């Protein structure tokens, strides 16, 4: 009964989405306030019905209703409750429902926090989001129905993929989707502005907070995913340039470019076409990511069930949304003025360079991701593109952007004096260069990549510090705007991230050993003593749990218990690495296969500064949040609440 209720709720939500995607546009074109208003109430109604569908499916998982095919395929009665609920997005149909729910959530958010916008503009935004919602709800109802019944019902479910039975997987997909789908708001603002012909500074000011929120979610979501891969896959990698990872990274790169470009449009009324194009691209890449993951055109370690019919549906949808948006752009762009002029040496030109670099980086990731597909489509053979391509291409592209990060915060709008600037920053450059050259020698190994990574990180920190000091000479700390502090914090996050990546890559120690109980081994100053393996059992798995005692200078610092689990329902072995995380290093132990009589294969890694990678991402996200709490947004909201 409950699943049918959910299904009915989805149909009603689709009907409301149809109203939402049509009437506000007509209302805005003809100036009928009633029809424009209608969009708002309908959008809220749609959210209610999508929520009912979401809760119905959650309930089916909670109650172990194996007469629902999707539940039978992705859950099991022995699965702990938190994973049963997270199993909702463990497969294709549920992921799509999550997508639609989050889109409805963002739309309600827009209806609530957009009272300060002109009625026509607001109506077109709501209408655009309605159109997107129609596509997804139709897709769910026609090709990915999560409520389909299984008759007769299964005795028990096939269980959630053990890889996904992890606390990280409870949060990673919703947060990531909040980011993905959040770019639909910036997209809808761009479409509304193109339709109404009001592509100006106010448009940029209104778009900015929404874009930043989506970007913060995407940043955190990607970091979660990377952390999960680090401890769950058992080989200590944190990024694999896998097609699915790239699908989330491309919108992030373009979203980052969009945030900076919006700043220029708001402050200087420049880059308008570029900004609007980026807003379209960021969401288009989110959709493209969905297509790549869901259609099966690419192979990936994220093995999802794939279906070409679904791929075709998403492709047609993609064509309508992106093709429509770009057609609108081509029609309206010639009428948009160029905006404020600027000199070649100015903050604008530096931000433009940074933008071009970020987009080029996203393009190179896309090329690497789709290259096997291009060749295959042209009948030129099958190849795969791996991390070596991305590592070689990505570092040289991003290096100038990171260098510009330090420079651009000093540059003035319109025109800046580069030679004078260089003089002001000579100490920053000197100190960071000297440290970058000498520090690796102290640490024991010097390579160009380590020196380059450290140089960039130190340069960003040094320039940020000098910039802050110069500002503090003119004003007190409390009078600094939160937007400025947020920017500094996010840039600092980039420096922390680069430090982590550089030092992990440069100084990690990896050992694959075969050890018997009682064996010890010394790696990088730490003594690892293997105590043996005992059998244990979890709620839905059996495990062999190893015990490794780690000491340094005869003092015990950690006891790690890596596990080798066998999830009984799917008969799937899983590695649970054990990690002693620290500020300066991670000690990482994972248990391999038994070798011979009582020896076991063990992987022991020492990963210096590994946690700085995710700490850097969190700082970037915090910087975004700090900028969002800037006074002008609070003032705007207060003003909006005063005028109903």
């Amino acid at each position, binding site marked *: 009964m409950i699943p049918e209720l959910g299904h009915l709720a989805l149909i009603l939500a689709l009907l409301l989405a149809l109203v939402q995607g049509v009437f506000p546009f007509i209302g805005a074109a003809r100036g009928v306030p009633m029809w424009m208003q209608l969009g708002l109430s309908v959008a809220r109604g749609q959210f209610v019905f999508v929520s009912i569908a979401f809760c119905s499916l959650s309930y089916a998982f909670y109650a172990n209703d194996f007469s629902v095919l999707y539940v039978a395929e992705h859950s099991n009665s022995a699965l702990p409750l938190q994973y049963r609920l997270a199993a909702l997005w463990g497969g294709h149909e549920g992921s799509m429902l999550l997508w639609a729910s989050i889109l409805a959530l963002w739309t309600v958010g827009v209806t609530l926090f957009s009272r300060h916008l002109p009625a026509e503009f607001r109506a077109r935004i709501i209408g655009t989001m309605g159109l997107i919602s129609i596509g997804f709800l139709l897709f769910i109802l026609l090709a990915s129905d999560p409520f389909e019944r299984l008759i007769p019902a299964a005795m028990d479910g096939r269980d959630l993929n053990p890889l996904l039975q992890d606390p990280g997987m409870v949060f990673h997909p919703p947060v990531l989707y909040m980011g993905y789908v959040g770019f639909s708001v910036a997209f809808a603002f761009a479409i509304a502005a193109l339709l109404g012909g009001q592509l100006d500074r106010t448009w940029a000011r209104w778009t900015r907070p929404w874009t930043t929120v989506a970007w913060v979610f995407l940043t955190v979501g990607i970091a979660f995913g990377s952390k999960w891969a680090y401890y769950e896959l058992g080989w200590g990698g944190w990024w694999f340039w896998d097609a699915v990872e790239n699908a989330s990274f491309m919108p992030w790169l373009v979203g980052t470019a969009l945030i900076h470009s919006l700043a220029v449009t708001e402050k200087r009324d420049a880059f308008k076409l570029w900004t609007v*194009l980026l807003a*379209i691209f960021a969401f*288009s890449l989110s959709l493209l990511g969905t*297509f790549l993951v869901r*259609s*099966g*055109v*690419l*192979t990936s370690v994220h093995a999802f069930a794939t279906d*070409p019919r679904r*791929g*075709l549906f998403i*492709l047609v949808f*993609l*064509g309508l949304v*992106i*093709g429509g948006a*770009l*057609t609108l*752009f*081509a029609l309206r*762009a*010639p009428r948009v003025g160029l905006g404020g002029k600027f000199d070649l040496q100015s903050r604008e030109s530096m931000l433009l360079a940074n933008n071009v670099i970020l987009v080029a980086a996203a393009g190179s990731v896309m090329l690497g991701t*789709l290259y*096997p*597909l*291009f060749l*295959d*489509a042209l009948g030129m053979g*099958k190849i795969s593109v791996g991390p070596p391509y991305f590592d070689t291409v990505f570092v040289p592209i991003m290096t100038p952007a990171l260098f510009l990060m330090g420079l651009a915060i000093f540059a003035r709008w319109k025109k800046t004096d580069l030679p004078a600037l260089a003089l002001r920053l000579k100490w920053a450059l000197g100190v960071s260069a000297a440290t970058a050259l000498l520090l690796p020698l102290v640490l024991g190994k010097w390579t160009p990549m380590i020196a380059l990574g450290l140089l960039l990180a130190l340069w960003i920190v040094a320039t940020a510090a000098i910039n802050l000091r110069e500002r503090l000479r003119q004003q007190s700390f409390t009078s600094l705007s939160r937007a400025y502090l947020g920017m500094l914090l996010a840039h600092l996050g980039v420096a922390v991230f680069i430090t982590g990546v550089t030092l992990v890559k440069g100084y990690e120690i990896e050992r694959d050993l075969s050890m018997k109980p009682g064996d010890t081994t010394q790696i990088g100053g730490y003594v690892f003593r293997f105590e043996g393996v005992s059998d244990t059992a979890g709620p839905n798995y059996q495990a062999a749990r190893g015990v490794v005692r780690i000491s340094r200078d005869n003092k015990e610092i950690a006891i790690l218990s890596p596990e080798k689990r066998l999830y009984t329902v*799917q*008969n*799937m072995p899983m590695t649970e690495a054990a990690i002693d995380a620290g500020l300066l290093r991670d000690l990482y132990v994972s248990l391999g296969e038994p070798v011979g009589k009582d020896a076991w294969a063990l992987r022991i890694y020492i990963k210096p500064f590994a946690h700085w990678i995710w700490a850097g991402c969190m700082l970037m996200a915090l910087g975004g949040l700090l900028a969002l709490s800037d006074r002008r947004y609070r003032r705007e909201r207060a003003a909006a609440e005063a005028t109903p």
Partner: protein
Amino acid sequence: MKPTLKYLLPLAVFMALAGFLAVGLHLNPRELPSPLIDKPAPAFSLPKLGEASGKFSSEDMKGKIWLLNVWASWCSACREEHPVLVELAKSGQVELYGLDYKDTDADGLAWLKEGGNPYRAIAVDADGRVGIDYGVYGVPETYLIDKAGIIRYKQIGPVTREVWNEKLLPLIKGLR
């Protein structure tokens, strides 16, 4: 470039990309051509599952059209495939032989007891050596081998009813 054409550029790039994606939908990235197609099947002689003294030798198969299905009790896709194989064996349209890949005898036998045994005989490839000769990189895989001992087709992933009707059956009819 005319100024108005300039603004059509993003659309044109996207259309090209969409074209590739549309073609890509019809290709299967997991389908790698096997270098062994139309080459002699690697010879092997292995113990038989469930018969302590029996030997399964590929030499004995000369003169037959047969399917070699690589499976394992730990493979979840095999569970999906198994009912189809049982049905095929009952229909008697083809001689089906198994290769139990990197598995223990006890697990393999338990699996057959549970799901039924569609195979005329099963070779035990406990250490996966024969699997390497055949280029097995995932279980299940199925090889169609003709009277002269030449591999004619390799099915990667489960044999489904569609695969049987559209690929294997026409090939077998052609070989006869």
